[in-house]
């Protein structure tokens, strides 16, 4: 397969910009929404942009070492990379990114890239809260990974492919073809896992502001922090798009994309607003209980009902 | 008690087993082929009227050599056990026998020895042989010990006799390989005239060696048991 590399890179930068901006905006919206739910006025939706620029403009920075310095780089590269391996819009060459490099498994495993790099960078800071936060985050990650993986397996079995594009293609032709309706158990498992992935309450113990002030990124500030904010936007966008592609029929245009991803995101936000924080061992057990059972049921359902 | 019961049970079962043999035993009415051949040809082949001797000394000579060995070994074993490291505790000297006995033994001793010699020398002709003769000789020693508990045997002489007669037996056997049909063949010497003392080839020689060996060995064993041996 020959690729027109300059064009491809150009397209990707475009995607990156769109998703990045959208992600920033989304976090503003979420903050605002949460404030409303809690009866506060909250920040303006453009506040994340202000914060970003403020951080970028800082004149000083301390470093604890090379890995500390590279941590945010890894983090942001992880976010951007994840986006790079996920097609944004179905049937559009412009919005398909570098999806041809690998399938769903690539996207799933690449999500860890940034986390790992960040964890190592934060580790070098020597701050115990960083280590504690990472330990908790990783621990929780292993747990929600289970229902998520089961859900993925269920739909891979259902569509008999690992290619994200093919999965989206199989959902075209009407709302009823979405995985949400053809395989609701898988979607339920995946969405529960999604709650853990976003790191909102009740699964935010790794950042737990009250006990281990924001956890892993404790020592990061100024430009480092700015890059991490950017990553949150891009990474969140990439994950949302992946979920949309896999479970909600994908999107053929940007409007559809915005609506669907916003809706998916709101699930996490609403749940986060409604439930208090779990202790980390509680959340581990939580994910390994019902979400996992649902995931198991999803595979059984797929095998027994959908395949024959 | 359980053990006693088990013993009884075992013996009862053994008894049943033996009954299987005794109950099914049929007395033979004729000789089998092998002994038949010994009886038919033994006298001619080996020149010994006493077929038991023929079997013992020649046909199954290796058994007999082994038998001598067994006796030699038991003498050694008794010797090893009773001489090294203490031996029997002879706290009080044994009591002397009465004078009658002592005197009788003085007369009897050479006669018994002579009888023993007679028995092993005529082993190929009459019932008897090296072992029997040797045993009689040893009984003379026993007689001696009973009457004179303090008496000592000449250990070196005994030992030399014992060793040399054993070695001589083996040498005769080897001569059998060289001069006759095989190891322990008695025909290294001429068979002589049937029924005479000096006949039946090497049988009388072998029986002499055996008789001497058995006599000295058993005597030595008796002395060991008597205690206070050298």
């Amino acid at each position, binding site marked *: 397969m020959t690729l027109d590399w300059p064009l491809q890179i150009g397209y990707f930068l475009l995607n990156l910009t769109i998703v990045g901006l959208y992600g920033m905006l989304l976090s503003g919206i979420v903050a605002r929404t949460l404030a409303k739910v809690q009866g506060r006025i909250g920040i303006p939706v453009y506040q994340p942009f202000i914060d970003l620029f403020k951080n970028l403009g800082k*004149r000083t*920075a301390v470093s*604890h070492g090379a890995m500390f310095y590279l941590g945010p780089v890894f983090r942001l590269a992880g976010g951007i*990379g994840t986006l790079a391996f996920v097609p944004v819009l179905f049937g559009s060459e412009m919005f398909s990114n*570098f999806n041809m*490099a*690998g*399938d769903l*498994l690539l996207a799933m*495993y*690449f999500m*860890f890239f940034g986390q790992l790099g960040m*964890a190592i960078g934060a*580790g070098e800071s*020597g*701050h*115990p809260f960083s*280590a504690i936060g*990472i*330990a908790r985050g990783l*621990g929780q*990650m*292993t747990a929600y*990974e*289970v229902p998520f*993986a089961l859900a993925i*397996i269920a739909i891979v079995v259902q569509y008999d*492919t*690992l290619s994200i594009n093919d999965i989206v293609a199989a959902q075209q032709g009407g709302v009823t073809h979405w995985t949400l309706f053809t395989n609701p158990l898988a979607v339920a498992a995946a969405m529960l896992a999604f709650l853990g992935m976003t790191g909102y309450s009740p699964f935010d113990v790794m950042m737990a502001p009250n006990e281990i*002030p924001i956890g892993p990124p404790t*020592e990061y500030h100024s*430009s480092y922090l700015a*890059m991490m904010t950017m990553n949150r936007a891009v990474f969140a966008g990439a994950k949302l798009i992946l979920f949309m592609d896999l479970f909600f029929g994908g999107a053929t245009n940007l409007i559809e994309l915005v609506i669907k991803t916003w809706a998916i995101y709101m699930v996490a936000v609403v749940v986060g607003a409604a439930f208090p924080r779990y202790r980390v*061992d509680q959340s*581990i057990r939580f994910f*390994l209980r019902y979400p996992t059972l649902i*995931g*198991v049921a999803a595979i059984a359902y797929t095998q027994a009902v959908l395949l024959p | 008690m359980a*053990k006693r019961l*088990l013993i009884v049970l075992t013996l009862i079962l053994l008894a049943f*087993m033996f009954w*299987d*043999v005794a109950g099914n035993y049929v007395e033979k009415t004729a000789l089998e082929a092998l002994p038949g051949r010994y009886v038919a040809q033994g006298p001619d082949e080996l020149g010994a009227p006493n077929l038991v001797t023929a079997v013992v000394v020649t046909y*199954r000579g*290796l*058994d007999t050599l*082994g038998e001598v*060995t067994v006796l030699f070994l038991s003498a*050694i*074993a008794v010797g*090893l*056990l009773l001489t090294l490291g203490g031996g029997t505790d002879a706290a009080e000297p044994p009591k002397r026998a009465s004078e009658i006995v002592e005197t009788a033994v003085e007369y009897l001793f050479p006669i018994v020895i002579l009888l023993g010699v007679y028995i092993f020398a005529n082993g190929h002709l009459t019932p008897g042989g090296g072992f029997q003769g040797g045993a009689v000789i040893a009984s003379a020693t026993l007689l001696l010990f009973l009457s004179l508990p303090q008496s000592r045997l000449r250990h070196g002489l005994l030992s030399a006799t014992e060793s040399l007669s*054993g*070695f001589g037996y083996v*040498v005769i056997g080897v001569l059998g*390989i060289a001069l006759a049909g*095989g*190891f322990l*063949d*008695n025909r290294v010497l001429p068979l002589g005239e049937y029924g005479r003392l000096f006949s039946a080839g090497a049988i009388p020689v072998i029986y002499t060696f055996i008789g001497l060996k058995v006599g000295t060995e058993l005597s030595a064993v008796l002395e060991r048991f008597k205690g206070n041996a050298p």
Partner: protein
Amino acid sequence: MVDALINPLNLVIVGLGIGFLLPLVDGRSPAIRRGLFHLTLAYQALLPLLWLMWLADGAAAQEIQTAGFGPPFSINLRLGLEEALFVAGVNLAALLGGWYLGDLLRDRAAAMSAFLILAMGIDGMIMTRDLFNLFIFIEITAIATYGLLGLERSAAALTAGFKYIIATSLASTFFLLGVMLFYYLTGTLNIDGMREQVGLVQGPIGMVAMALLVAGVVIELKPYPANGWGLDVYESVPPGIAAMVSVGVSAGALFALYKVLPLTAPYLPAMAAIAGATFLVSNIIGLKQKKARRLLGYSSIGQVSLVALALLLLTRLDQTAAIPLVVGGLFVNHLVAKAGLFWLAGALSRENIADWHGLRARPLLLVLFGLLLAALAGLPPFPGFWAKWELVMQLSAGGMSAWVALILIGSLVEAVYLFRWFGHAMQPADETASTPAMPQLLPVVFAVLGLFGSGHIAARSFGPDTLATLLPVYVAIALMLVDGLPGRLKAMLTLAIVAIYSVFIAPELAGLHRLFGILLLGGGLLIAAASLYRDDSRHGYYPLLTLLLLSFGGLLQAETSLQFFVAWEFITLSSYMLLCMGRGAAPFTLSYLIFSLGSAFLLLAGFGLAYAHSGSAALADLVRVQQGSGWVLGLLAVGFLTKAGALGLHVWLPGAYAEADDDFSAMLSAVLGKATIFGLFIAVMQLGVKGGAATAVMYVVGWVGLLTAFFGALMAIFQEDIKRMLAYSSMGQVGYMIAALATGTHMGWVAAGYLTVNHLLFKGLLFLVAAGVILRVGQREMYRMGGLIQNMPFSFFAMLIAIIALSGVPPLTGFGGKWLLINALLEKGWYWQAGLAFFASAVAFLYLFRMIHTVFLGQRKRAHKDLREAPLPLLIPQGVLVLVILVFSVQPNWLVGPLAEIMAGHAPQTLVVNGTLVQSGLGYWDGFMIINVVGAVFMVPLLMLLVLSRFMHVQKVKQFNIVFAAERPESPETTHYAYDFYRFYERALGFLIVPRATAFWNGVTEWSHSLGGGLRTFYTGNGQTYALYVLLYLVALYLAVGGST
């Protein structure tokens, strides 16, 4: 004249003649007496050896007549090949034993006579062809023994001797009565004559006759429980005498059994049952035994029973052609090894096996001891190994699998107590006991040499190719001789030898074998090169390492299952010995060896069954096994899984990996573990695709693999010790390989191959990094480290690369493995398993982060401020491994392509490699493109940060300059979050890792020990009870077979 000198009858004549003469030279000239004694023994040993040679070259068996008449009129003897072998063995043992006993016998001409005649009597038992004459020789042997037993004057020895007499005299009474009844029935005493007329031995009298004869012989072989008298003797009499009773008298009894066997055919199954039970039970009781000599007694009885069992079963199968190798091999093995051990035990004169510690300080003794034990345990190249192999093959072919199981279980139990003893010897000692005098050790040295020699001869009967598999041992022995050289020089020598060997065999390897050749030998060389970092002499390390590495070659070159198994056993033995050199390894070596041997025995059983079904011993003919392929595969798979440390069978693994020398841990995990995978490949490729039961086996193996992967990872995260963590990690990673292999598909095998290669790279790297860190820090607990990135940046980088490669995060090699694995599982339809694989690989992140963080990141201890980077000899192999990982990360198709090609020869191809794109039926993956995209993507934020940094004042801050509740932390110890890192995870999932497997195996241990304790309560020590057992044996035999019909 020459004819007269070589006449076999001289064995009797000379022994007896000199025996009679010896007392004559009593007292006068002890030197002459001693000279005569040894000269006679030497002649007695030389003569049968010569005959053995001639007979082996095809000379006719010697029929010796006595008294000038042929059988049946006179007694005749025979010296055939079997007789010559046994006589030579016994007389050699007598020669060495006589030398050993020299001091004890010096002043006792009578005892010398008895000893000479004892040997002669045994020779007679072996050679005679007359049943009554056999009785005579039995009695000669017995009484000579009684006499010699009386040499020791302790109450224990005397009572033991008396019990011995009671039992054996009853036995010979039985025998005599049996002989007479046979004579009554057949009219002859000649054994060959009786064989012709064996039809006459029937009816009630016949049955009783046979029972008596059998009981007479069997009791001499000391069957359980009627053998307490024998054990008492072994324990209490001088070891030199005990050796002679154990090997010589038993040899005669065995041969008597061999002669009686054709006459008592109906009793054969009962005898086999007795021998089997005795073999098993005495080994189990041996577990409880603490006293060295009594332990040897149990072992002795077990071994003799095994020889008898082999004889009986082969006779039953009518495989008489195999008897010389099997029975002869087992017999010689027992004879030499057991005698050697008795002598050694006597020379050391330490009663309790726990007192044998400190042998380590005396290398010669240790080597002798280890080799003797290895021989007893049936390891190559000793004769017992070849015999056991042939026995198992024949029994399997004859459908006697239950017997195979019994033999292997018994052998394993025996190995337990033997090597526990060795473990005691390896313990350091406070005091150094006096070294025994050389004259006492000389016989032991000869015994070991004899074992090598006879092993070589036994191996020859399997053809020159098998003989070639012994090459590693000889190389190792040669290296052992130059063990005095400096350590680094020896390391170079090892590397050179292995490198030359590798180059030499490389052209012969193709396909899968070439792949594993590169892994095992190439990887082995690389890891072995790291040993250069140590400059101490490491006695014995390099010869054994050479043995290990060369045996990998043997494994690869193996064409028959035997050659494979030989190499496998060498690997087991050498790795065990190497493991023993680890400082804290002592508590773990035994379980390592036991599980390794258990694994080996399962393989042996599997190969035996394969031979039974395919009729071929070629490794490539496993594929011809049709019926029973499930069983064969099951046995082989469990065997390999045991060695791989699969869940439930893993209890040996963490301790072994953790406590081995640091560089050897890398070898164990990264390289040696691959040998197991190689074996599994061979088994699965040929048998796994058979359908039927094999499919079920594969399914189970698949689950076991994934559960191993999961639990390995889960247990790893809770370890404080870095090597323990790596050990559990290895266990988990191997689990993936097993699972991939078990799919039985092209994709799965490519995945397994890929995972194997990758695991070698990153695990070698991790263990070597750990070695460097441990060297510098002097600790293994990770929480005592921290912040070492500043001191050891390269080590950090190497570990970083390794953990990324392990975790499966793109763009390094790990992702390929995960992708292939998941695809293989999904393609196979193993969806739940795939879910578990995801979970396991996520859990792996936990320990990976913990490891790199606790060691290299976080707060550095003050004491570690001046530590230096790891030494260069450690870093260079690390560099090579990093380089290889990076190359395969950029061009994974260089690895996947050849793998796909290799595996395509064995299963329908489902994986397509198209340029840099790898495609399965489900998905696709272009490693080259991924790394380019990731590289480019990485540049974006990097450039951004670099640019931003131009405008900032980036300042490197000191250690404690952190936002810590507005305070300066107290000390690194309290600030480094490291200890009990995943406490919360334990709270959540800790219930999963309760050490059930350990508890189970402890239970097995306990149970078998108490079984042994229970079984030995039959030994009351009372001579009368023993007499009762003897009588009961007769009755039981009769009732079991004949009865009152």
